[in-house]
């Protein structure tokens, strides 16, 4: 199942669903945090479970529903001025995540049993954060191949 929008495309494996959208414009009505004048950038949410419509940029609302076999992949694009800076010096999106990359402390919100991994990179002159959440760290060996297959099927097109 192929998704394509905002210069990002992904070929999802069976059992996954995804969203490629622009970050919600911060306004008083949307309650999204940020500068109302900012130019919003794409956010990608890919998951092997049903994604709720009410979600935060980094998966809040979705991580609450995750159980052990679930994994959530977030691609969050930063502004063009961040590309190739020190934090985003890594070139190319990671395609192979390993269990040792994950930690219960690397979560935006700590939930029992969950583990996260955050990697910053630049690809196609675009700065991104890859944030991956495992519903159960103990299931990393079992579910990471699915996540890696999803990443392998994802391409970021250059600006």
């Amino acid at each position, binding site marked *: 199942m192929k998704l394509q929008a905002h210069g990002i495309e992904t070929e999802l494996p069976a059992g996954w*669903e*995804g969203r490629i959208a622009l970050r919600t414009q911060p306004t008083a009505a949307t309650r999204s945090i*940020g500068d109302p004048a900012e130019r919003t*950038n794409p956010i990608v949410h890919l998951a092997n479970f049903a994604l709720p*419509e009410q979600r935060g940029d980094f998966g809040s609302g979705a991580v*609450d529903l995750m159980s052990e076999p679930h994994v959530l992949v977030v691609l*969050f694009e930063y502004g063009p001025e961040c590309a190739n800076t020190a*934090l985003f010096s890594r070139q190319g999106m990671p395609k192979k995540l390993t269990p040792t990359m994950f930690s219960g402390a690397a979560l*935006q919100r700590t939930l029992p049993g969950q583990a996260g991994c955050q990697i910053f990179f630049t690809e196609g002159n675009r700065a991104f954060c890859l944030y991956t959440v495992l519903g159960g760290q103990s299931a990393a060996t079992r579910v990471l191949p699915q996540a890696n297959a999803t990443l392998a099927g994802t391409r970021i097109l250059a600006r």
Partner: protein
Amino acid sequence: MTALVVVLGLVVAVLALLVVGLLRSHAEILKRLHDLGAGVEPGQPTSQPASPTATPVTSREDFQVMPQVPSPPDREAFGGAADLVGVGAGGADALSVRIIGVEHDTIVAFLSSGCITCQKFWDAFAKPRKLKLPSGTRIVVVTKGPEAESASSVASLAPASFPTVMSTQAFTDYDVPGSPYFVYVHGPSGRVRGEGTGPDWEQVSSLLAQATVDAGLATALSGRQVAKPDADAAREERIDRELFEAGVAPGDPSLFSVTPPDGADATDADRHDHDGHHPHG
């Protein structure tokens, strides 16, 4: 005297005709009401087909519609469901929604932005707690793609709580005769439990309940989500705003630093060049 008798006889005859006509009309009304299922006591035999069995329903005779509502299209068997992929409301974003091989059931609601009857469903879906969805069921709204629909209109109508997929292909995949139209899919098997339409959500939900073994409509799917108290949500929002004003935006690396064990050096994750404020996208 004779004339009086004749007149009385004529009056009686006319009244008799009136009574016969009223009785026939009454019988017709009772028959129509009986066909609609009114006044049928549990256990009494009816002229309707047997109630659904305790297995997922696949026979179109088990899905009953009101007489004036179009029945599901004639097919040898209900077609299988399909996962949905398309663009989001507004026409710019991309999304896919799993329908088959999932734990939950799905009601796929085919709507359009221009039909008057659909407006009742758009309005109903804006208030998810009042829908009284069967337990473990989610709604997905589908409209035709941007080439056949007004993306801006769909964006203004799309409910915040359910996915809205713009996809003309989905109308073909599900063999939808028109909108509004509803297909109830059993998630684990992908089988269509029932399909049809009605004039409003109350009628449709009643018909869908008849097509499944769920007697009565139980807790909504939203009950599975963690209900955050309003005070906690307000507190989180205030904290997010204060952090942002201090230069710590959502996703800022400083929020994710891993504290090293005592005496150990800082990890690579902590050595990144943090400029203090990374404008988020």
